């Protein structure tokens, strides 16, 4: 097969490229420089490119995530990408992470991972594996991508890339930049910010948490979970842009946001700590190993009642820490002094609410 690996940046410079200055001098210099370059540039540079180079570059930065699921059509796998050389992995927050997931690197190495933190509003989670010197995607501050630009979506879709097999790469273009207006089942999704809609079928099982890159191999965004358009019901192929992800990922890695139970924060005696009952919260019956922390009823004139907590609210965070099930919720409350306030993040239908309960 003939292939031309040269993939010069100017080949893919978007048409909307900003001249960037009104300075005549710069224009003049630019013109002269370009003319010289144009004379010197051999024709081969503009020969047909292969997407093999960016595809290959992306592979060491991609991971396969295996966790909960595997029943009733719920796949137990998804995608992720490295965001630090020390083994921080960004991925989509989903049921797959209900257990500590197993992460497999591009070379087939297998790691147990810990969930470092997550951002419910973006449905983003950051995992950590004990490894170093890893290739990773720097997350850019600004987002210069526009509709029509060519992109590659790299993911572990359908779980077909196991072990050291390369992650799947699909090509397409950004079809639109728009606000997300989507639903999962009957619920509207919490994130309603800007997304990149894609003309490739990124909406497949396991693709969530994959990376969207440009033909230079630079990170553009994270492939989102399977969603449908809220009004039409059409499946959406989209990615959350890099600039939206940058700060939350940075905050989680820096420890400004965490959901891990802090072991230095000891369990207090029952009479000195909070409990669901002391806050006036009645939870649904705890019949499963991982019964979610759904509220069944609220005691009148309790702390919970005063902030208008309601039945069917799902408790997501307590003092910034993740509540994966009722046991975790009780455990976290046992670590908070009865005299201190409790900050909750709850999901009510399609809304995420921050509430502070004062004793």
């Amino acid at each position: 097969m003939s292939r031309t690996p040269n993939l010069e940046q100017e080949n893919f410079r978007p048409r909307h490229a900003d001249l960037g200055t009104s300075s005549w001098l710069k224009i003049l210099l630019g013109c002269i420089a370009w003319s010289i370059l144009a004379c010197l540039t051999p024709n081969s540079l503009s020969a047909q490119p292969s997407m093999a180079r960016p595809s290959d570059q992306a592979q060491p930065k991609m991971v396969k995530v295996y966790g909960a699921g595997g029943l009733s059509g719920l796949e137990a796998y998804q995608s992720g990408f490295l965001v630090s050389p020390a083994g921080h992995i960004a991925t989509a927050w989903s049921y797959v992470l209900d257990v500590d997931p197993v992460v497999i690197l591009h070379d087939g190495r297998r790691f147990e991972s810990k969930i470092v933190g997550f951002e419910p509003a973006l449905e983003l989670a950051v995992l950590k594996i004990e490894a170093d010197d890893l290739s990773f995607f720097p997350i850019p501050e600004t987002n210069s991508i526009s509709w029509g630009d060519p992109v590659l979506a790299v993911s572990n879709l359908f779980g077909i890339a196991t072990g050291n097999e390369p992650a799947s790469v699909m090509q397409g273009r950004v079809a639109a930049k728009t606000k997300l207006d989507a639903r999962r089942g009957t619920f509207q999704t919490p994130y309603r910010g800007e997304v990149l809609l894609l003309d490739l079928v990124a909406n497949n099982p396991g693709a969530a948490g994959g990376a969207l890159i440009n033909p230079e191999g630079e990170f553009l965004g994270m492939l989102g979970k399977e969603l449908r358009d809220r009004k039409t019901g059409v499946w959406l192929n989209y990615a959350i842009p890099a600039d939206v992800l940058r700060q939350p990922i940075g905050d989680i890695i820096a420890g400004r946001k965490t959901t891990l139970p802090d072991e230095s924060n000891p369990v207090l005696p029952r009479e000195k700590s909070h409990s669901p009952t002391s806050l006036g919260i009645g939870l649904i019956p705890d019949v499963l190993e991982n019964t979610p922390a759904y509220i069944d009823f609220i005691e009148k004139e309790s702390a919970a009642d005063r902030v208008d907590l309601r039945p069917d609210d799902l408790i997501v965070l307590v003092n910034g820490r993740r509540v994966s099930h009722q046991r975790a919720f009780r455990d976290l409350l046992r670590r908070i002094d009865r005299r201190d306030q409790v900050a909750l993040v709850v999901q009510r239908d399609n809304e995420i609410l921050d509430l502070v309960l004062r004793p």
Partner: protein
Amino acid sequence: MPSRCLGSALVRIGCLTFALLASVAWLTTQVDAEESSLLPDEQRWIEEFESARIAGIAKAMPSTVMVFVPGGGGGGSGVLISEDGYALTNFHVSSPAGTYMRCGLSDGKVYDAVVVGIDPVGDLALIQLLGREDFSTAEFVPSRSVQVGDWCFAIGNPFLLATNLQPTVTAGIISGVRRYQYPSGTLLEYGNCFQTDASINPGNSGGPLYDNDGDLIGIIGRASFEKRGRVNVGVGYAISGDQAQNFLGCLHSGRVVDHATLGATVGTDEDGSVRVTNILSSSDAYRRGLRYGDEILEIDGQVIQTANDVQNILATFPSSWRIPITYRQEGTSVETLVRLASVHRGSELLEKMKSALPPPPPAPPKPPASPESDDASPESPEDSNAKSSPDEPEQSQPDNSKKAMKDAAGEPVPEIAVNQIEVREGYANYYYNQLQQTKFIERLRRQFEEATTDDSVWKINGTAIPVADNQQPSEFQLTIGEGQFEFKIGNDVERLSRGDELLRVVDEQRDAGILACLSALQRMLAIGPKQFGDTYYWGTMPLSGKRPLRDTVIGIHSDLETRFLHHPESERLEVIESIAGTDTDPAELWFGTDNGGIPSTMQLRYGTTTVLNLQIDDWSVEQAGQPQAPDAPINGDAS
């Protein structure tokens, strides 16, 4: 003065204004030039890229086949790979059609086609389009070099839309390589296949996947579907061209081809190494020293990194291939050759295949038969004869039974196709096996022209060259003929006369195994494949793990299975293998020749050990019953 000053000032202002305007105009031009300067470059790239793709598509289009099962019972795609009309498609595309189908090309013409051979496990079928000898063909390129990210395109017949015989082109990139797709149902297994985001839909099956230059890299066969019914979601799979080429020789045999297994299972250890977790003691791998816990390092020259790799590579080989394997045992690396066993035993494959076949498509209702057209009516006596044909003698009712063949729609199959169909149990189309058998015996008799007579006794004399340190060179004499087989080496003489004795010496791996190989050769030359025993063209396989692939014919006589391996170019018989059973090494007789005729050297091997190395001085032929007749030397230097 003021007026002059004014005039001068006006001139200056005028000049400045002009200069300014000129500068602005020049700069504007330059700005435009720079703005548009991106476009010509980008445009040139797009033009070149698209031109290359258009040229690739134009090159590829004529070789794409649109397969239609008669009676509207389905169809798919295919690709022509030889000028005389051989085309590859999927087994699951050809199977509803039975042996006969109709195929359209982009030239707008429809051709009759017959099934040649099938690989139900790997989902491949070889068909032949009839009526021309100058079909446009696609060229295979080594698909091992294909990378993730390479541009590719598929041409085919999605949703069977190409009823106007204009196929659909969809483009994309290679999304993944080395993909393993688990068996769907009981049979189909895709090993080491390509994944592409080029749009693949039902009906693309069997069609070609081309690289951007229009060269063939794979045969499309499968896709992942999700939530949208059976409609493309950007994940299609293609059987690699390398795998297809491995099976091509076997498919030409008209057989139902099986896949290979190592006879051992493997798992990935905690340290990442791939280790044997179970092994059959009857497997060739066990005989070559592979044991539980050994680490597999390479198979067929490809490095093994995961247990998945083992399955991926093995899935691309037909059964019985002998391939190089490297493993590590107690710190020592061992390189050896292993004969791969069949995945299925006996008629198991045929039974599974029958259960995997879709129900036959509903035939359209028949118009009432007119009194004039009663020559091919379903009630005609020929029809019932055709159904009971497989076990009947070959020459009985040859034409009448064939005329009654019906296609999937219940219509008579055209004569051009009937002439190339031979139904036989265990074969996709025995006609093609017979073709190859005829070629084989012609080739063999050409090489051994001087040794081919009906009643002859061979006398082969020469020197046995030592193969071990404690041996001395000695004279040998071989006598083969009239049901007597004698091997004299030094003072040792071995005389055999019965088939079971030949079987025993091979089973016990003795030097006299050479008699089994030579007697089979003599028998084949004398009476040909039709009378030799159960004889069939097997296909192609590597010789001792090396290419080119050798044409292989198998004959079974007196429970002894004999394989004849011919070089595809020199057409010279290189090796005869006599197999006494699956749990022992066969006797391999290797021939060396100086001029392509009668061999000048012979080596007998068991497994990877050479037990005899013979230099032939004289290979003479006597007529049977004339033991005292003067020798008729036939090799050049003895005359």
